[in-house]
């Protein structure tokens, strides 16, 4: 397995970044399907990262348990935050989640005794292995594929198109939204924990507005037609800077331009482009 080790030595960071970002994009997927615009997942990621890291550093808990708790805490926070916040719609929800994200970041910055404040948390044991990331991503993808292909996904699409009509069909719209929100929070927390145990250093500013917007961008870029869209969105946003490495200082510029071009020519996201292929196959099957 020597080639695997060399591969890992060279590309481990990349694989883990892709995995983390795909997981983050998946975390926002269901909320986007419901039509919810939230930038809170960066904050949930931060909560998960710090929880898992602190547990690893200070308690004797095994890695996987810390990771799980790092996923459960943000989910619990989401369950608390959800009911008042999810009443808001559209941009107001985005803004409320933005405010929440900033509050979390400020809290992390200011609780120095617990979180190390602006200096961040260092020396996190590097427990994350590539198979952890791969397994978790595949599991998350599977769960989301199952949900989105079922009546649950269908209901969420309906909620996105017309909440009132959906509610009047006997469906508890609030519960569905809360579910999407909390599941997303858990996945984001998981991503945070995994990431923390690889980069061994985390700081509050990694989980702010910019990250929140980036996650949203991954979700929208990929498209809401299918969880595969989130995979594409996450992978693309991670790989693009890498693929453009040769361009040096102008890398962000090209990055930005590519983003613009993609959204201009496929406003519903990249997954929408595949509908031509899928459409042909469906027509051929009939």
């Amino acid at each position, binding site marked *: 397995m020597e080639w695997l080790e060399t591969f890992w030595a060279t590309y481990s960071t990349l694989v883990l970044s892709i995995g983390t970002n795909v997981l983050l994009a998946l975390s926002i997927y269901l909320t986007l399907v419901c039509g919810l615009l939230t930038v809170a997942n960066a904050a949930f990621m931060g909560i998960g990262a710090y929880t898992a890291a602190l547990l690893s550093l200070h308690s004797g808990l095994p890695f996987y348990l810390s990771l799980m708790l790092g996923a459960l805490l943000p989910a619990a926070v989401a369950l608390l935050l959800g009911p008042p916040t999810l009443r808001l719609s559209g941009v107001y929800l985005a*803004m409320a989640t933005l*405010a929440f994200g900033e*509050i979390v970041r*400020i809290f992390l910055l200011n609780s120095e005794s617990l979180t190390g404040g602006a200096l961040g948390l260092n020396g996190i044991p590097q427990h994350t292995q590539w198979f952890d990331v791969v397994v978790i991503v595949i599991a998350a993808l599977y769960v989301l594929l199952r949900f989105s292909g079922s009546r649950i996904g269908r209901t969420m699409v309906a909620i996105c198109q017309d909440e009132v009509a959906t509610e009047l069909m006997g469906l508890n719209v609030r519960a569905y939204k809360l579910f999407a929100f909390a599941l997303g929070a858990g996945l984001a927390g998981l991503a945070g924990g995994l990431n923390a145990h690889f980069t061994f250093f985390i700081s509050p500013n990694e989980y702010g507005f910019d990250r929140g917007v980036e996650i949203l*961008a991954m979700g*929208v870029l990929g498209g809401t037609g299918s969880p595969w869209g989130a995979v594409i969105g996450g992978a693309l946003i991670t790989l693009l800077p890498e693929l453009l490495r040769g361009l040096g200082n102008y890398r962000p510029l090209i990055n*930005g331009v590519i983003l*613009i071009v993609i959204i*201009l020519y496929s406003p*519903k996201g990249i997954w929408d482009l595949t509908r031509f292929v899928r459409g042909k196959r469906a027509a051929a099957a009939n």
Partner: protein
Amino acid sequence: MHAQQLVNAISLGGVYALFALGFTLIFGVLNVVNLAHGAMFMLGAYTALQAVLFFKLPLAVAVLAAIVVTAGAGWLLDRFIFAPLRARQAPHLAPMIATIGLAISLNSTIQGLFGAENLRFPVHGLAAEGLRLGDVQITWLELQIILLAFLLMAVLLWWLMRTRMGTALRALAESRKAAALLGIDVEGLFRLTSVIASLLGGVAGVLIALYTNAVFPQMGQPMLHKGIAVVILGGMGDIRGALLGGFFLGCAEVFSVAYVGSTMRDAVAFGLLFAILLLRPQGLFGKAAQRRA
């Protein structure tokens, strides 16, 4: 002491209001969350700086140059990004993503051209002299900033309330379909809104750059965050809200730094924001969404 801080709050608040106005115009009329607004802000600052440093132009002309450049950028933004997306009936988040791309591109271009360090205006002497009204010290620069900000706001408000085109714009913000049915040139107005909003952001950029005497590529980001906070507070898409929200934030910042300390200042701001959103999601002046069949 209070009066001096009030002056600071007014000048800072005025600039915040300008910036927020631009942001809220694009949201209210085009229905887009323009995350490139911070980049317009930065563009204005750099244009004015280069006009003074490189072209050796007087400050007034530099401000004019900033206005022209950012207005032009606003025109391009609508022409090549917003308009095509409208034509394709893109989902409402798509333009926002495009503006993210634009902000990244602009920031990196500027950084590539001028470097990442903090640049300064050759202000010499401008800052020191000024007026003295009782306990309050205002430099000429601060005075000019306040005057320009208020002048722009007054002109804009007058234009919006009293002219036909301004009224058409307000109609457009209410309902795109109705405006089109009334024969209003909807596309033209969208373009104009983008121009106006961008130049407001650009002017705010110049003013802040002069006020703090710091110009750097990332300067738009924190400003964008604040602009968003202002607009949420005042109500998305509402002009009065943007104005009042801007002043409110200016006052809150100046006074809270004095009394609470700067680290918790942001926490106070966002905590307040969050509470307000829960109690009154549409902000102080926004329209409440209705849930009826």
